[in-house]
């Protein structure tokens, strides 16, 4: 298989993701209504929630890859996990930065060490450390096994990030399945924006989540191909090094 060229499925998915993102942007800016309390700046919410959601999905896929590697010891599952963690970190970074930019007009501060924001920082650091762990182990098999265990344990930070605003008092709005928490937060003056006020907002959010999911799938295929290309290069490098050693002796 020629790994240096994009295959047909990857190309189709890349185009579909680009079109979906364009459509999502149009929906966000021309279809979604203006939020009453915050005005237009609330439109950050669609990309923020979309990227956070797909980031969590990426870490779930990485968890699956880790579990499957421990069961089958097949290299492809390690490749899936590493690709997924890398993309998850990109989406999580987007969610953190967009949340911070939204927080400035909403809370009058760029950052707060609230339970949700603290947990998401811990999650980001935990997954960034995944690459440090991989870099520290030379043996391929051991590296893949340690990484699989680590990626399974790290998913705990994602669960805690999701749960944090539902069990602890937090300024961060609860958007999904948290009507009671939102109402409580609003009554306590903690949250001025409780999420989705109209059907148009729900549709826009769904469009964005679908567009981000397609982007994740496209990036994942590209990243997996890149990992295979890396493996192939490593293999050839070792063959070249053997050949050169033979020449020298």
């Amino acid at each position, binding site marked *: 298989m020629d790994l240096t060229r994009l295959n047909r499925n990857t190309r189709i998915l890349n185009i579909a993701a680009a079109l979906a993102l364009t459509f999502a942007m149009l929906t966000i800016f021309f279809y979604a209504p203006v939020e009453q309390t915050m*005005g237009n700046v609330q439109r950050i919410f669609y990309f923020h929630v979309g990227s956070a959601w797909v980031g969590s999905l990426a870490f779930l896929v990485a968890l699956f890859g880790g579990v499957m590697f421990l069961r089958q010891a097949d290299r492809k599952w390690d490749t899936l996990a590493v690709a997924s963690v890398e993309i998850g970190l990109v989406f999580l970074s987007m969610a953190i930065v967009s949340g911070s930019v939204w927080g400035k007009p909403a809370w009058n501060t760029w950052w707060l060490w609230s339970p949700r924001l603290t947990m998401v920082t811990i999650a980001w650091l935990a997954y960034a450390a995944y690459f440090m762990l991989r870099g520290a182990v030379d043996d391929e098999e051991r590296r893949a096994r340690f990484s699989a265990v680590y990626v399974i344990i790290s998913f705990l930070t994602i669960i805690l990030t999701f749960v944090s605003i539902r069990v602890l008092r937090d300024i961060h709005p609860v958007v999904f399945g948290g009507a009671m928490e939102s109402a409580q937060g609003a009554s306590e003056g903690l949250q001025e924006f409780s999420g989705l006020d109209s059907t148009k907002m729900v549709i826009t959010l769904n469009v964005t989540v679908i567009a981000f999911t397609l982007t994740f799938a496209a990036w994942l295929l590209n990243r997996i191909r890149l990992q295979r290309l890396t493996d192939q290069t490593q293999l050839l490098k070792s063959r070249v090094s053997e050949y050169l050693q033979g020449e020298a002796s």
Partner: protein
Amino acid sequence: MTLTILSSFALQTGVDPNQFNNYLFLGYAVMWLIGLIYVASLAMRQRNLRRDLDLMEDILQDGDQEAS
């Protein structure tokens, strides 16, 4: 009391929906930048690997030719 209620109502209806638009543009600009940097990093890594791969294949091909 009535004056307070009326003034608060007037303040609420006077909210300008565009007052935080600079944050909106900043947020989207940063998010797109992160995404584009990642795509560019994928493309760069692929280009470098392709170059390495071609070089290795050339070395091995030369070796095979010498051997034959």
